[in-house]
């Protein structure tokens, strides 16, 4: 490794996560927190279904195909809306235009001050005064608005973490503000942004469980309706917890793999 003294060329790696729920991509040992958790969850699920098929296999077959698919659908739709919204919000927060800046900042402040559960209720009842909206649609809108604000902060921090010299170099070549952002700053910022955005997406998947109160038939709602007829509270929520855990662990590994792919220019 010839070059050691110059930190700028290495694309400043600044952590802006709120916690390490993404496994470290450089972690090469077989036994780590992630593999223990995943193996444990799968083993527990299998053991329950094998040794006590009576309630557990029945619970699983009740929940599995439909509930998980709805949960995924809501998550994917919300990610598709929240990530672009987050990017626009992040750009708005660093905009030199005072009006845009205020608009984006106010949006973030308002959304962050209201619990997601309240937002889900509020947007449903607000929208249904004017339109005929399904619970799923309003849930996706509420979750997207909520996470768009949080991701806006992530994008803002990621963009600001790129050294000023990078945009000065681009501007000095003749790139305008917009080109500088999209050709030079964002491609580098993405690497800082991806782990926290991945975290947000995983948190989002977990938060979709809140939409069950809107009678959206997601994983959690299926569990609740099953419990309603069988009164198997403990058994059902054990299975639900394990399913959420397994999905979340697999997703966090995916983010981790994507993160390591983005480190290609490190020279390591």
């Amino acid at each position, binding site marked *: 490794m*010839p*070059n050691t*003294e*110059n930190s*700028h*060329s*290495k*694309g400043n790696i600044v952590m802006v996560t709120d916690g390490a729920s993404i496994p470290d991509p450089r972690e090469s040992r077989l036994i780590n927190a992630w593999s223990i958790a995943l193996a444990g969850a799968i083993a527990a699920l299998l053991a329950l279904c094998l040794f006590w098929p009576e309630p557990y296999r029945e619970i699983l077959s009740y929940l599995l195909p439909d509930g998980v698919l709805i949960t995924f659908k809501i998550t994917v739709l919300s990610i598709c809306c929240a990530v672009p919204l987050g990017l626009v919000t992040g750009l708005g927060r660093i905009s030199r235009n005072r009006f845009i800046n205020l608009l984006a900042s106010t949006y973030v402040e308002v959304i962050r001050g209201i619990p997601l559960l309240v937002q889900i209720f509020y947007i449903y009842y607000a929208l249904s005064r004017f339109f005929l909206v399904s619970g799923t649609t309003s849930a996706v809108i509420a979750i997207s608005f909520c996470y768009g604000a949080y991701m806006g902060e992530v994008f803002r921090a990621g963009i600001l973490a790129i*050294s000023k*010299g*990078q945009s*000065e*170099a*681009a*501007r*000095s*070549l*003749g*790139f*305008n503000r917009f*080109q500088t952002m999209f*050709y*030079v700053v964002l*491609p*580098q910022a993405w690497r800082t942004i991806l782990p926290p955005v991945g975290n947000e997406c995983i948190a989002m998947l977990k938060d979709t469980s809140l939409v069950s109160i809107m009678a959206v038939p997601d994983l959690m709602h299926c569990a609740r309706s099953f419990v309603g007829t069988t009164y198997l509270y403990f058994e059902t929520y054990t299975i639900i917890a394990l399913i959420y855990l397994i999905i979340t662990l697999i997703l966090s590994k995916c983010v981790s793999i994507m993160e390591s792919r983005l480190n*290609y*220019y*490190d*020279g390591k």
Partner: protein
Amino acid sequence: MTESKTAAPIITIRNVWKYFGQLPALQDVNLDVASGERVVIIGPSGSGKSTLLRSINRLEEIDKGEIRVQGQDIMAPENDINLIRRNLGMVFQQFNLFPHKTVLQNLTMAPIKLLGLSREEAEQRALGLLKKVGISDKANVYPAMLSGGQQQRVAIARALAMQPAIMLFDEPTSALDPEMVGEVLDVMVKLAEEGMTMVCVTHEMGFARTVADRCIFMDHGQIVEQGSPDALFNSPRHPRLRQFLNQVL
């Protein structure tokens, strides 16, 4: 040196003031640079020399006065600064290569996106420039794999890829290990010999002596003394210049 001064100046700086808060970074600076002239700016740190250089391509915006590049007022709203900058290559102390692009892509990006060159044309131009700065074998590696000296040579080539009329150097060797300073200065000397108009802020007094047509000594945001390197280094008139030379030589 003298014959180039008869032509119309390619850069004119008139009564320029720049403040950082209350602090004047530039105080009533006047300077003309002729086409093909090599101007080297020296001075203690905090004297405003980098600020002056960065004002020429508007990376710093001046508060008063006027700067014209090839006759165009760079602060005038009707002049597109992005077009003016294409003619002003800049090399930074910290290299500022794009770390997510290969060396070749660093050189081809601006010509392709801004000048509309095809990829083949841009790559041909880039490979020629890499050969000129002596690193053609590193075209396909990422900047993080290069030494500081190599990175700075790539940065010079990247600026040259836009075929600018003027090159601005902002302490290009200050972030380098001593053994790498020579290779970067060699490239700059070669460029000077080809007749490139250069404005260079540097602490390399040897370079200033051999390459400069004119040396400028700045202190406290003002041009204190200027003249041929010979006059400046061998018979400094101003006491602050004498003091500065005593410290650095």
